[in-house]
């Protein structure tokens, strides 16, 4: 579903991604873990085309999405084809990105109406169905300011799903939440994985990674150090760095 080949990304002199290769199969939930600054978020941002890599390729559903040869610069060109491939992916961020001047319902219907050309009622029906799915049917007419952090994140998930993406990317979506709100967001994501959605999740929630991931990818220093089934990576990591990281986060619990 997603195919990443030879991805490299620098911010100034800092090399954030080094030769990253990754395959995500259809229906698979891949959880990316690793210390802060290991390049996890940048990897997601490159995959969805928010960040231009310095070199490498990204294919989505077999379609070429990003292709950069070394030394190419400047922002990605947002052509029609680029946007139509980008739309196969939905993304939820760590920060709350609900549009504050629109109601929850308007947030969710905006793209289906403007991008997919759905009629108002059609988009609203779809939005209400998705809001019910994330447990927010009674918040449709509220403005985001009236929602808790967890509700905002669930609404953002509904907004992304409204475009019927084939892949969902989650970039530390629970990191800005109060601890008691984390669970409600994770359980929506868990449900999504159970429904067979292809997912790439960057998170520090090791419990979630352990239970939900089909595959865990450990990154450090801009490289993929190790990947495998959660049972393998968490209990018998092959690499020293993975072991050190896992020991550190698990003794925490």
């Amino acid at each position, binding site marked *: 579903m997603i195919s990443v080949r030879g991805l490299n990304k620098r911010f100034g002199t800092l090399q954030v991604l080094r030769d990253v290769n990754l395959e995500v199969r259809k229906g698979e939930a891949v959880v990316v873990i690793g210390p802060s600054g290991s390049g996890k978020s940048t990897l997601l941002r490159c995959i969805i085309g928010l960040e231009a890599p310095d070199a490498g390729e990204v294919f989505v559903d077999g379609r070429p999405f990003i292709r950069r040869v070394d030394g190419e610069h400047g922002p990605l060109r947002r052509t029609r084809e680029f946007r139509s491939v980008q739309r196969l992916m939905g993304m939820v*961020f760590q920060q709350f990105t609900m*549009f504050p*001047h629109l109601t929850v319902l308007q947030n969710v219907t*905006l793209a289906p109406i403007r991008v997919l050309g759905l009629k108002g009622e059609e988009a609203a029906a779809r939005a209400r169905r998705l809001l019910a799915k994330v447990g927010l049917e009674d918040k449709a007419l509220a403005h985001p300011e009236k929602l808790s952090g967890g509700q905002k994140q669930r609404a953002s998930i509904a*907004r*992304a799903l409204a475009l019927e993406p084939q892949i969902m990317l989650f970039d530390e979506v629970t990191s800005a939440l109060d601890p008691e709100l984390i669970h409600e967001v994770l359980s929506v994501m868990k449900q999504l994985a159970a429904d067979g959605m292809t997912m790439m999740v960057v998170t520090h929630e090791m419990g979630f990674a352990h239970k939900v991931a089909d595959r865990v990818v450990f990154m450090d220093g801009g490289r993929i150090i190790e990947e495998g089934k959660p049972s393998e990576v968490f209990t018998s990591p092959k690499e020293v760095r993975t072991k050190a990281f896992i020991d550190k986060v698990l003794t925490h619990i």
Partner: protein
Amino acid sequence: MSYEWAWRVVPRALPVLFQGLRLTLLVTVVVIILGFLLGILVAAGRLARNPLISKSVAMYIEFFRGTPALVQLVWVYYCLPIILGLEMPSFASIVVALTLNVGAFYGEAIRAGIQAIPRDQVEAAEILGLSYPDKMRFVVLPQAFRIIIPVALSLSISLFKDTSLVSTIGVADLMYQARVLSTETYRPMEILTVAAFIYFIIAFPCTLATRVLELRLARVRH
């Protein structure tokens, strides 16, 4: 020695002052509209990717913000016809000069409003597949306008008072009439006080309204 106020000159002066006020308001409204339209272009130019465009627009802004409006007015009124060899009616000159002046200020206010929108809002709009015009229309500008409107209103109130500069080149606005009446009656203190009062009675409620609006817009933001 004490000054004896002679307010009896006022009733006779009022009709003439109101006549001047009409022109003041006309200039203000015309310049607000044209200036804001120019401001939109200025903001777009300032945010343009092309450095040649953004740099030259930045120079224009700094020039008009950094020099006295009075000089700009005189320059457009006297010098521009000489250089370009075209005669402009005085009303047109002052509209051009003041529009160029406030356009720079509006432009900066609009640019600042747009840039105040958090990057992740823009990115969220992008990955939802919204085209550039849709992104501006549905996500960026509605939020930016909440920031821009109070600033633009207070700039407009300043403009209303600054139009008094046009009296120096003989345009018969409120200030001009007040100056003429002052010499005619030998009572500048009384006449100018009344003129100031007229400016105030229009500007002050606008300032209050701006403040109320600002509070209300701030409340719906987050």
